[in-house]
Structures are given as C-alpha cells and as structure tokens.
C-alpha cells in the first residue's frame, strides 16, 4: 500500500492538484453575499421545504447571530461572514446516471476520478458539487433491503418523518456558532439510513467539492443505523484554489443503535484559503461500535473534533485522526469521547505532521460521567515536526467523575531524526525521498485502516506535501 509512493505520484505537479475550476456564470441560482433572514427564507423557499424546516433554519439564524465567534482553537479574526455566499446551485436537475450530469461539472469530477472509483467496488456515489448533489446512485440490492443513501434535501422530501425525528438531536442548533450557521443555511450532505440487521458490506461514498469562489459549503449529514446494522461511509473533499477565502462548515450527526457498527471515513484536502469548521458527533447505544477515521490536509484553518458519546452499556468509540499542516496552515484537530454508561471503551489515536511553518494542535476531550463504571479509554497522540519553523501543541482535557475507570494517555513529539535520514540516505535515498518514507511510516498505522483507494490517495497527498519541503 505504502509500497511505492513515488510511482503513485509520478507526474503530479507540485501545485495544488485540484486547483482547476469551472466558470460559475452558468449557475442556476446564486445567493448574494452575506447572511440575513431573507437569504435563509429564500433558501427554504427555493427548496420548497416544509414549514418546520424553515422555522428550524430561522431559529438557527437567530442563534448564530447571538453567539460570539469562538476565541479558542485557531484564529478566526479574518473570517468575514459578509463576504460569503451561503447558497448556490449549479444545476436544476439531479442526475441519476453519469450521462445526465452537465459536461462542465462532469469534467471536474473526471479530474478527481469519481466514475472510475464507482465502477470498482463502491456501493453508491453521492457527489456533492457546491450546494446540491448532482449525481447519485445506489446499488439496487441495498435499496431493496431498505437502505437509504441520498442527499439530505432529497431525504427531506422523500423521508420527511425520518429527517424530522433525528435532525438536530445529536448536535442541537445551539451547540456552537458554526453548528447554528449550518442549521440555518444547510444544503446537501448525505443521508444514510440502514434498517435493523442489514449489513452494507462495501463502503458508501460521497465526494464533496467547493467550486465557486467565496462559496460557503454547509452540508448536513445525518446517518442512522438501526439495531444490529453495519455500514461504512467514506467521503473525500477537495476544493480548487482561490485568492479569497471560503468557509466550509458541515454538521454530521450519527446515531448508532444497539449492537450496530458504523465507521465514518473522511479525507479532506481543502485548498489553503478554506476555513474548515466542522461539527461531527455520534451517539453509540448499547454494545454499538462507532469509529471515526479523519484525515485533514490542506485548508487555512481546520477545527474539527469528531465525537462519540457512549450512552449504552458496552458501547465502543474509536477515533483515528491524521493531520498534515504545511506553510500557512493550522490543523486544530483531535477527538472527543464521552463515557456515559458502564463497560464502555474508547480509543483516540492522533498523528500529526507539521512542516514549513505549519502548525498542528491536538485537542482531545475524555469524559467519564458518574456511574460509568469500568470505563476504559486510551488516548495516544504523536506529532512529527519536520523543521524548526513548524509547531505542534497538545491540549488534552480530561474530566473523570467515576472512580472505577482505566485511563491511558500518551503523547509524543518527535523530529525527523538526523540518524534516520542518514541511515536511509546511506542506502541511496535522496533527502526528500527519505523524509517522505519516514512520514509515510509515521502515518502507516492509520493509513492501513483506510479503504484501498483512499490509502493510495492519502499517500499521494502526503507525498505531494513532502515534495520540495526539505533541503
């Protein structure tokens, strides 16, 4: 898998690979810049939403406007809410097959390689192009079993009761400023529903992409696994490079019911001017297993801490996080686990790499509530710093209100060792190649958890980040 980085990246340019963009003059609808009640109402109107959703949005807007911008984490002082376009739709139709998708948009996806990926072993592809999903498919036998995989707007039209029952229950409107913002202007995102006892044995996949300049992307993802269900959802995110700044603020809510198992894998590679402020939270019921695999490259600032709340006895939560901070980037990432029931167990493993003045911060919360007896948790965060200009910090928060617990916490910060470089170079590897190999090895334990094509992509991206970084 990590076997030949170089072969995989042969021919990739040093520039941001996905920095191409389509003209947005042909957009079907574009909201003005900035946010107001009128904009929110217009979004709801265009989508022809039920009244309760319009009210949900308006309440959220009110909350957003009242809440102050967070002062912790990264620097948000240059984020100008008035310069953002909160809604834009590239096409009025939603394609069912690849042929129905407009040529310009298809061109973009071709560059990323979505149809090829689908042809392989993907259960369904939901590709989000700006605010609305333009293309969607799901393997027929899964649909027959009652599995729903569609964009959240479609879900609101076709399965309104399910959406209404669960939306905002895991991450309430008032959870934080950006969750409120998302609740006010959300558009698209994935909706996954897996009925009791159904196993989806191939990954469900979505690909998100911000295209238009100063375009906010506020997808809303809602995932429900009924008792004993199994599924794996995978998303990749890529945005073209623009000079002005974009905001990506998603909300992802996951409900994993008794005995169910779910894994959510994200590889994000936003352009270097994107604020990536995402709230992800899962609730794991009795004997349920929830796993977040979270890879963050690119962006100007990422603040993202996938969370698992273990509310049923025997539940398990696992968070694997990889962050790569290059020049001008701050990755403030980590994970949160809350043990709210007995015999629950969790693990957070975080690996970060900082180079060329990049900054990575690990922020983790481990909480055990009173009565969550025999809770077990292990938190490991390892940071690799490639040069003296780069930085890494660790902010672990631990709140334990129960005596009967087993907790482990380890943190390490290392620099690429002179001895390691010398050893590899003495065997014929150039300094860059040696560094890339060391970095690849550092993240290997996490990369091997990824589905094959994502592992390849991850290695490509890391290699790309490494080129020309040393010497």
């Amino acid at each position, binding site marked *: 898998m990590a076997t030949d980085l170089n*072969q995989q990246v042969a021919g990739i340019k040093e520039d941001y690979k996905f920095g191409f963009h389509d003209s947005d003059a042909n957009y079907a609808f574009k909201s003005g810049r900035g946010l107001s009640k009128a904009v929110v109402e217009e979004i709801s109107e265009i989508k022809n939403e039920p009244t309760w959703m319009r009210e949900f949005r308006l309440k959220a807007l009110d909350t957003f406007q009242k809440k102050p911008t967070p002062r912790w984490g990264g620097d948000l002082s240059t984020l100008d809410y008035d310069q953002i376009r909160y809604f834009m739709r590239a096409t009025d139709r939603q394609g069912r097959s690849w042929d129905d998708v407009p040529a310009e948009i298809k061109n973009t996806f071709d560059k990323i390689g979505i149809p090829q990926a689908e042809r392989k072993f993907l259960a369904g592809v939901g590709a989000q192009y700006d605010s609305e999903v333009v293309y969607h498919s799901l393997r027929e036998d899964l649909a027959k079993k009652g599995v729903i995989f569609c964009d959240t707007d479609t879900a609101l039209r076709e399965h309104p009761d399910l959406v209404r029952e669960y939306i905002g229950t895991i991450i309430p409107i008032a959870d934080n400023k950006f969750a409120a913002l998302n609740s006010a202007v959300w558009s698209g995102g994935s909706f996954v529903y897996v009925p009791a006892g159904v196993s989806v044995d191939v990954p469900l996949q979505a690909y998100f992409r911000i295209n238009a300049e100063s375009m906010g992307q506020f997808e809303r993802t809602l995932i429900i696994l009924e008792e004993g269900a199994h599924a794996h959802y995978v998303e990749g995110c890529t945005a073209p490079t623009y000079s002005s700044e974009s905001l990506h603020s998603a909300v992802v809510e996951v409900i994993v019911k008794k005995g169910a198992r779910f894994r959510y894998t994200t590889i994000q590679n936003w352009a270097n001017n994107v604020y990536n402020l995402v709230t992800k939270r899962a609730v794991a019921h009795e004997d349920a297993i929830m796993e977040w695999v979270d890879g963050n490259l690119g962006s100007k600032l990422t603040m993202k801490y996938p969370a698992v709340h273990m509310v049923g006895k025997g539940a398990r939560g696992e968070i694997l996080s990889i962050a790569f901070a290059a020049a001008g980037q701050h990755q403030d990432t980590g994970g949160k686990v809350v043990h709210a029931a007995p015999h629950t167990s969790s693990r957070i493993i975080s690996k970060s790499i900082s180079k060329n003045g990049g900054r990575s911060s690990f922020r983790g919360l481990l909480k055990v509530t009173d009565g969550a007896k025999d809770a077990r948790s292990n938190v490991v965060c390892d940071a690799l710093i490639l040069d003296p200009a780069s930085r890494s910090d660790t902010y672990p928060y631990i709140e334990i209100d129960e005596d009967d617990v087993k907790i482990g916490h380890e943190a390490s910060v290392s620099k690429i060792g002179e001895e390691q470089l010398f050893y590899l170079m003495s065997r*014929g590897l150039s300094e*860059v190649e040696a560094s890339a190999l060391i970095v690849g090895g550092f993240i290997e334990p996490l990369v091997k958890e990824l589905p094959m094509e994502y592992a390849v992509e991850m290695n490509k991206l890391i290699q790309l980040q490494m080129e020309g970084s040393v010497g």
Partner: protein
Amino acid sequence: MSMSKVLRIENLRVAVAGKEILRGVDLTVKQGEVHALMGPNGSGKSTLSYALMGHPNYEVTGGKATIDGVDVLELEPNERAKAGLFLAFQYPTSIPGVTVANFLRHAVSNVRNPDRKEGEELIPMRDFRKEIRAEMDELGMDQQFARRYLNEGFSGGEKKRAEILQLAVLRPAFAILDETDSGLDIDAVRIVSEGVNRVAAKHSTGILVITHYERILTYIKPQFVHILYGGQFVEHGGPELVQRLEAEGYDWVRAKHPEAARHEDELEAADTRAQGASA
C-alpha cells in the same frame, strides 16, 4: 562486475564537535580484497566508517577518499551509496511504519539506477520480491521478515542480518562492516559472516571489517590487517597481526608508538568526560 574499482583513502583527517579524531589516515582497498581494521575503543574506527559514509556530525578537515578517482567525500551520502560504498551499521536505526521490503525497494531502485530522478518509477515489484525472497532464504531469514518495520523491535542478531540482507541486494563495490560481530552469539557471527563471504565472492566486493575481536576474522579471512591507534594507522600486516593482538593486547603497540599512545590517551580521556557528562 565489469571493471575492478579501487577505494583510496589519502591523509584523511576528521573532527567531531571540533575535536580531531582521525589525524591523517591512508588506506587502499581494491575490489575483491578483505581488510581488517582493529583498534581499541575510541581509536577512531567508527569515525572512519561514518566519515566515509558522510554522517553530518563528522567533519572532514583534510585529505580525500576516492573511488576510481572521484572524491566521495564531496558527495551526499546517497550519492556515495550510488558510487558503490556501503556501511553495515553497528547500531542500525529503526524506521517505524516502513517495511523492510518497501525500504529496500527504494534503496535498490536508486543504487542500481544512479540516474533515477526523484519520484521516478521503482524497480518492478515482481522481480524485486523474487530477489529478496531468495536472499532471505540464503541468510536463513523468515519470509515474514520483509513485512516487518525496519529494525523496529529487531533483536541484535536480526538487525545485523538485516544489514547483510541490504549488502546482498545493493551489491556495493566496497562494504565497511562496523563491528558487525558485536552483540552476536557464535552461531549468529557464523551465519552473518557466511552471508558476507557469499556476497563478496559473487560481486567481488572489497571488504573492510572493523572489529575488536578475532572471532569474526576466523570466518571472514582478511588478507590485510591494519591497527588504528590514536587516530592513526600504526601497524599494517597480515593475519599474524590478529594473532599477536589476541595474545598480547595493545601494550606492545603503545610501547612502539609513544606519540600515538599519547593521542589515544587523550581521546580516551575525552571519551570518558563525554560519557560522564551524558550520564
């Protein structure tokens, strides 16, 4: 191997942290020859090997070391490897997450194709896999070994065997074995030595064995023996030198070379101070 190469070290001076360790050494090794380099702790043996391979902490203050006329001291360590130089480390570094196979494929791709540009294709996986399987068999290594992370959690014997595996697939013109026998039991010394002999016979490798002990030299038989003392070569000879050191120790060397003995004492004192400071 087409043309026979020559490694020529001339008046080499090396300092570490501003302190001169090697004070002008000369040595010529031809392909196919086996040389042994002996000397007490701190005499400069490892300094010579690290300086030749290009470790950044070893500062060359004078002299040169050429392979077929090209001064390798001017080259980066990876370029030295491509020029045909190999160092079997006394303490190989571990590289977590990087498998032996992946690492070796990168190494072989560079060393066998010296003109390869960064990011260009690696040697074909199929041929490479076949090759390292065969070499691991020869060294009595389990095939699983290729999938382990490089030197991570390896026993002393496994580390040394891994070094010889690298020697076998990289096929250098010259190999320096830096105390390859240290920390090995007698069976492991034999297995590793047989591996070295097999590679040397096949590729006509010029070998420089650095050691404290006679033991490894009963398996890898040197034609030339050199004694390094106080940062200089003080005696050159054949296998009989090994016997004499084994029987008499270094007292006669001290007596015969008083100036070198003075330097040796200085180096040893500095060494002791450094250890005291770090303890």
